[in-house]
């Protein structure tokens, strides 16, 4: 029943984030069930019956306070545990960036994503850079850094299969990373409202095998070469 709603986990940190979500589900699920059981149970047990008077409990005596204080102490313990498990995962995704194999540039604007890939030389800002609008091509099992910039308003760069999201801010360059663990084509979203075309800037990420990626680069370099050399040839 829930199969269509399953989102694949295709980055090296996606599994970590999923584990945090599962761990939180178990802990809060326990408290949720305990509280609902108490609420519903008390409503059934203590419904009004003829001849039975309610009890007088202030909840301010020490013995009574323990009924609340013990659960509270356990909730604090759960909170501490969640923070301890969650912290390293956050740090892995957002703080400790591994050395990159490749760098791509991601530019948000009203209302499209532009991606600048390094060409065959593997470097940005060289003539063979491949610029695309709306589709990002990456190679599986390679560490990528992405440099986020915006031309106008806030955007947010989100790839659900990577469990990755980062706001894009005009005037700043924000660097993040990912390493894909599986191939395929998936949605890239803008998750920060950016004007009337916010719903009109879908993009796709194509995660390719080394062979596919090399083939794509070769094909794009051909057209790039053709487009840059042809006019010059015409002039001569």
């Amino acid at each position, binding site marked *: 029943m*829930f199969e*269509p*709603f399953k*989102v694949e986990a295709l980055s090296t940190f996606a599994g970590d*984030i999923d584990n945090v979500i599962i761990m*939180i589900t178990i802990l*809060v*699920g326990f*408290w*949720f069930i305990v*509280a*609902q059981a*108490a*609420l519903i149970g*008390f*409503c059934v047990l*203590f419904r009004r019956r003829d001849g*039975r*008077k*309610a*009890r*007088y*409990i*202030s*909840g*301010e005596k020490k013995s009574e*306070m323990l*009924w*609340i204080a013990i659960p*509270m102490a356990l*909730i*604090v313990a759960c*909170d501490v545990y*969640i*923070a301890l498990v*969650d*912290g390293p995962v*956050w*740090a892995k995704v*957002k703080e400790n960036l591994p050395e990159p194999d490749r760098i791509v540039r991601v530019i948000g604007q009203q209302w499209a994503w532009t991606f600048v890939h390094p060409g065959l030389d593997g470097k940005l800002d060289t003539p063979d850079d491949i610029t695309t609008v709306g589709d990002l091509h990456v190679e599986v099992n390679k560490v990528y850094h992405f440099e986020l910039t915006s031309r*106008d*308003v*806030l955007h*947010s760069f*989100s790839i*659900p299969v990577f469990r*990755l*999201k*980062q*706001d894009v*801010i005009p*005037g700043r360059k924000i660097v993040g990373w990912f390493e894909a663990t599986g191939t395929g084509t998936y*949605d890239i979203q803008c*998750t920060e*409202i950016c*004007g*009337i075309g*916010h*719903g009109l800037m*879908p993009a796709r990420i194509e995660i390719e095998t080394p062979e596919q990626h090399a083939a794509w680069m070769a094909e794009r370099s051909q057209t790039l070469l053709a487009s840059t050399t042809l006019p010059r040839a015409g002039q001569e």
Partner: protein
Amino acid sequence: MAESVPATHDEHHEQSFLIKYLWSTDHKIIGMQYLFTGMFMALIGGFFAYAFRMQLAFPGTDIPGWGLVTPPDYNALVTNHGTIMIFWVAMPVLVAALGNFLIPLMIGCDDMVFPRLNRLSFQVFFLSTVVLLSSFFVPGGAFGGAWTAYPPLSAQAAYNLTPWGAPLWVLAVALEFVAFLMGGINFITTTMNSRAPGMKMHDIPLVVWMIVLASIIFMLSVGPLVAGAVMLFFDQVLGTGFYDPARGGDPVLWQHLFWFFGHPEVYVVLLPAMGVVIEIITVFARKKFFGYTPVLYTTFAAGVISFTVWAHHQFIAGIDPRMAHIFTVTTLLISVPIALIVFCSIATLYGGAIRFTTPMLWALAFIFEFLLGGVTGIYLGAAGADIYFHDSYFVLAHFHYTFFPIGIIATFAALTYWFPKMFGRHLNETLGKIHFVGTIIPFNVIFIPLFILGLAGQHRRIYNFELFPDLAKPEFQDLRVLATVALLIMLIFQVVFLYNFFSSMIRGRKAEKNPYEANTLEWTAESPPPHGNWSELPSVYRGPYEYSVPGRKADFWPQNEPT
């Protein structure tokens, strides 16, 4: 005390309709003005939800009552739905209407300390309402940059394409804050200064405490946002660059100012709602409230902590990632005082003699539904998990599971509970229960599917998901249709409430002074209370929750009954 209020309330001449209802300084009339304005705005906010949910379920069709929902329409609808439901429904009804109506009646005085300031508060609020609604009729249409109004989108007409709508939105919100600031000053000063003789700090009913604490939190948090709103307004109309990075400004500054207010604001509306629930469960369980002083002081603590959690809205907004750890810890910690209040409310039911009247059903439903809203907040407070959930439908479903219990369920609890005191007549219980079932069940059928869609990666504020292949699957669309159909059913059932509300006001069974055999002072006044509330002001001899005291025949013991 202002000179327009007579020193004694013994003699009152008949006032003209205009003076009585539009220029009144009576706290009850002002409360009613806030209530009816809030109810009117709730109809508009609900209509907006209907329009954009129809677009999501049946994209591109002609929506009856609206027409085609274009992308600018969609953005304006979601933006103003959020703005209206929080600032023009939850705030005026839970804080202003209940605060005005209840505080003098529950602490035993004849009116607010500053009645004319109170009147000015409503008048400014009314003006803010007119400004907000007028933004739908200006060139370019209403603002569509989300209720959070992040610049640069909100700051420059070149980006938001609403040259009139955006400044009017900011102006309306700023005016509304001014109105509530004046109201809040009254709530705090009146409660501190005008309590009935004998009413000590720990004899104040918790709903009054909650409204006072909410007012204090509001006063302390709203200043930075008003400053931020002024800067945003200047950016919009004078061309300054406070939030423009090209001219040395910083768009993230607004996010800090907004959420420094925005998160405490959650507690500003949550606390009065919890207060309402506490009053109702003690009366209908015939129980003393479990842990009055612990709850009171943890609520203080929650208020303090609420000022330290704001950046959990900005984990992925480009703040220094090391800060996320601190805000994760504070955010997880605030779950503790809130859990304590909820647990004490549940513990109050233990050993009770519970009557399932309509107000009691709403109060219990508040706890039932709010629990899900509360626990799903933990996912979002944990920075790592929030990377995935941020700006998804999971967030949307989470805060609707908090704000719907607060703004709708607790409001219905309060209205059905105090209706006899407000209007001197009873609501129809059968219609009340039909309306209850017809609201609660559809509410869950709307938002459980949205949790699932959020888990599946569906992001917010998108007017048509057909452009996103991963989200355009038929199973996803089925859930969107399910949520929309449930919303339609819920909206239809509100007709039952409106009929019950207005017909009972005229034809309902007459209410005596104290129909529920409750302890608090408002039930010692006539139903409805006259101008001045009591001919002789009451004195207080005990706390508000002395129900089923051993050794007494009656299971209640009014606060004003001499020992």
